[in-house]
């Protein structure tokens, strides 16, 4: 297990360094490390390293790569929690309407030109987050009214009904407000392009806090995967733990898509890959989902901005294009092997 964890962490480090090194201007990985050491620890920088490279690494690529890593980590941990709590391998924050809500929030900004006073630049993230989280709170509130025990099927069905309803409103806005359609579509497909340091300085602490809160519930997550009655008789306070976990997971997704748009698939497949590699115990699933999901997102973003350079591809499309066959290979490949054994 220790070897596997070490390999995964090293892979994450390599992906981050390569993500910074490769782009329209290639910067050797050794120079990337020197620039990072210089800016973080004040280490001496060799004269051959061009100042332009230092600026590219520090002002453009590092924040972008860190944002991608944090986004991948937050989405994957959120997916792992949703799958375990709802005992459904296909569950995600998206199933419960977080992305639909965030898209509706974004559509108010993009189509209607709504802008917050004093902080107009933060309007899109703030509205995206608020609408995303607001949707899941509404879903949980209504589920709790419909079913005092908040059974999983009630939550999932309520989430799906809300998703469809809110998506319909967003679609209507597409019809009535043609201007901004392209921007809205691009936002819905997600991107880490030209974001600077601001998003990462907000998302990174949010992701760390969210993952730490969720990690505190590693036992409850384990026990709950065997069913709620079982968990209850083992001493878990189901309703409050479930609320706390689902809202934390939704907040992780909401804060991510608020900054980078809707990036799908990583939250579905990263936790499954992690369970295949590290087992189902959440003391591994939560931190390793963060590491594997973050690494994958850095790689997906690297592909998104280099494959058709200088045109950036939507990273949401890339995660699905790379992730779907990889996921199928890992997930169904193992199944075929065990069926044949």
């Amino acid at each position, binding site marked *: 297990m220790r070897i596997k964890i070490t390999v995964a962490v090293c892979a994450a480090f390599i992906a981050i360094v390569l993500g910074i090194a490769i782009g329209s201007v290639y910067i050797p990985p050794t120079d990337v490390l020197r620039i990072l050491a210089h800016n973080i620890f004040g280490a001496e920088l060799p004269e051959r390293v061009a100042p332009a490279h230092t600026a590219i690494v520090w002002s453009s690529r590092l924040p972008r790569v860190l944002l991608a890593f944090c986004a991948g980590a937050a989405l994957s941990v959120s997916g792992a929690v949703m799958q375990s709590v709802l005992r459904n391998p296909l569950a995600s924050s998206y199933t419960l309407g977080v992305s639909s809500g965030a898209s509706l929030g974004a559509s108010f900004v993009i189509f209607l030109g709504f802008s917050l006073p004093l902080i107009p630049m933060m309007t899109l993230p703030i509205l995206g987050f608020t609408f995303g989280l607001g949707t899941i709170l509404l879903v949980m509130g209504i589920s709790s009214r419909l079913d005092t025990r908040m059974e999983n099927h009630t939550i999932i069905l309520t989430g799906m009904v809300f998703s469809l309803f809110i998506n319909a409103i967003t679609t209507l806005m597409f019809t009535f407000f043609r201007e901004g359609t392209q921007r809205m579509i691009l936002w819905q497909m997600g991107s880490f392009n030209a974001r600077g340091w601001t998003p990462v300085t907000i998302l990174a602490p949010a992701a760390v806090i969210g993952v730490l809160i969720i990690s*505190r519930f590693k*036992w409850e997550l384990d*026990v709950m995967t065997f069913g709620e*009655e079982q968990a*209850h008789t*083992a001493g878990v306070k189901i309703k409050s733990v479930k609320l706390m976990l689902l809202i934390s997971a939704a907040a992780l997704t909401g804060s991510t898509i608020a900054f980078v748009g809707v990036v799908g698939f990583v939250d579905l497949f990263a936790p499954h890959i992690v369970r295949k590699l590290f*087992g189902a115990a959440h003391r591994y699933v939560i931190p390793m989902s963060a590491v594997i999901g973050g690494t994958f997102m850095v790689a997906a973003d690297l592909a998104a901005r280099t494959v058709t350079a200088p045109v950036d591809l939507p990273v949401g499309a890339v995660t699905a294009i790379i992730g779907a066959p990889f996921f199928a290979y890992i997930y169904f490949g193992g199944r075929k092997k065990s069926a044949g054994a």
Partner: protein
Amino acid sequence: MLALKNVSAGYGGADVIKNITVDINKNENLLIIGPNGCGKTTLLKTVAKLLAFSGEIEINGKDIRKMKQKEIARKVAMLSQTAGIYFTYSVYDTVMMGRYPHISESLLKLPSDRDKEFVLRCLEAVDLINEKDKEITKLSGGQLQRVFLARTLAQDPEIILLDEPTNHLDLKYQFELVEYLKKWSMQENRAVVGVLHDLNLAMRLSDNIMILKDGGIQACGRTSDVLTAGLLEDVYEMDVARYMADSLKIWEGLRK
């Protein structure tokens, strides 16, 4: 050690069990029998505080309404039918989950040496110590139910509630499970309250019986005192004693 006084409970406001009053003493094996829908499982769920109830339920003289969920879990554990498995855990990790109510609330919530040792002892008790690193999805039905029994034991309860845990198990494992629980209940401050569909198996486990019909107690006490062919016929609406006797003839007629 477990006392129910005028307990009524059910689903959606409708009572399934009504005015149940019973005392369960240490080293007692109480078996609940009755036709489908008579409230057997509802009664177990009520004792586990899975359902809201009226009346009083006390564990060692303490009202369970005033006990925290973890405190109840340290006293009462439930062994049910094999649950659906969605994710792959090792045998050891699955049994360790039984220690949840005992794990300290420290920052990292790590299991103590005592927890680890306890889990190993439970694995030994169900003869799965050599399988502890195996994935539970790779076990047979019988082995899996032994894992769940070990997890129930790891909870270190005083009372085990059995909710038809032998369903889907073959005969040998059913017999082994019941024999093990019978021995377990003879230890200090232990009791078993069970629902088993198989009356033959039920009789092997239990000395005391509660017969439920339409949510109320039809009879309760020592099996030898309470159980009559007429009572069984009344509850199950068929001649159970005759059916069992006929079955026995078939078994006895088998060639050696």
